[in-house]
């Protein structure tokens, strides 16, 4: 539809979260309104302390068709998981 507002993806950092997480999307005519809409749609239950919005067209995404070549090679490389190491307590949040 020609008059449709652009789509924005919304990322919220929660009360105890270390990073912003994708929570959903919404429509808005400009970035300021997108942030206000995100506040009203996605933080009604005290979920957030910070909001990021990005217009969906600016996100480059991998294709589902490339799933095999992209992700399967790492399945057999369990030595890449850090589960073989003891992390000292003083290292804190990783």
């Amino acid at each position, binding site marked *: 539809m020609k008059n449709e507002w652009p789509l924005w993806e919304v990322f919220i950092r929660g009360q105890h979260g270390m990073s912003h997480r994708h929570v959903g999307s919404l429509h808005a005519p400009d970035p300021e309104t997108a942030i*206000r809409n995100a506040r009203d749609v996605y933080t009604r239950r005290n979920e957030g302390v910070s909001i990021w919005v990005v217009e969906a067209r600016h996100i480059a995404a991998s294709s589902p068709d490339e799933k095999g070549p992209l992700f399967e090679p790492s399945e057999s490389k369990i030595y890449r998981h850090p589960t073989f190491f003891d992390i000292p307590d003083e290292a804190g949040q990783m």
Partner: protein
Amino acid sequence: MADVDKDKLVQFLLRMGDNTLILGHRVSEWCGHSPVLEEDIALANTALDLIGQTQMWLGYAAEVQDEGKSADDLAFLRDVWDFRNLLLVELPNGDFGRTLMRQFLFDAWASVMLGRLIRSSDERIAAIAAKAGKEVAYHVERSAGTVVGLGDGTEESHDRMQAALDYLWPYVGEMFESDETDAALAAAKIAPDPSSLRTDYDALVNKVLAEATLDIPAGKFGHKGGRTGRMHTEHLGHLLATMQYLPRAYPGAEW
């Protein structure tokens, strides 16, 4: 409680609480009907904030009144002539543009008023103003943003916002009317004299409306009578019929 005639303090609290109650109900009428989902949720949030503020204002009014009534009794069991809200907030929603213009004109007043009330000599009023002030700071940011977006938008949205402003502006003056109740509260430093809010209000409203490319009507005529209870518009009775139906048809109902 501050040092002022009890009836006058109740009158002031009813004026504050009836504004938020009636506007909150009006805004809630958009629930499920807004032009887009995002606005629908945002308006419902605003309505809920206003109803929450009503609980504080009318709850305190009922306490000061000391007649064994609750905030609910005051909201649902009074009739038109007992209400003390501004005429502005009881006007029908009209189109979305008029609703948002009314919201902005009220939010701008509420933000200035609450900014003064946080320094009230009455601790309860100061506490209510502090809590409500944060909500209203967001409301006015949002409604101002929408007024600018629509005013400085397409030809049609601009014309609708100008028509909304032309229709609503004659109801703005009532916010700054003063009577002996206001004088008594101002003397006791409980609340500012309403007329003293006009400079800050005009500064905010002029700035936003200029950005929205909208012209404030030149006429000086003003509708009033709501906050004194002298007269309301024909619309308030219809609103109350809807809002008060359930507690009147089923007295004492709980769920």
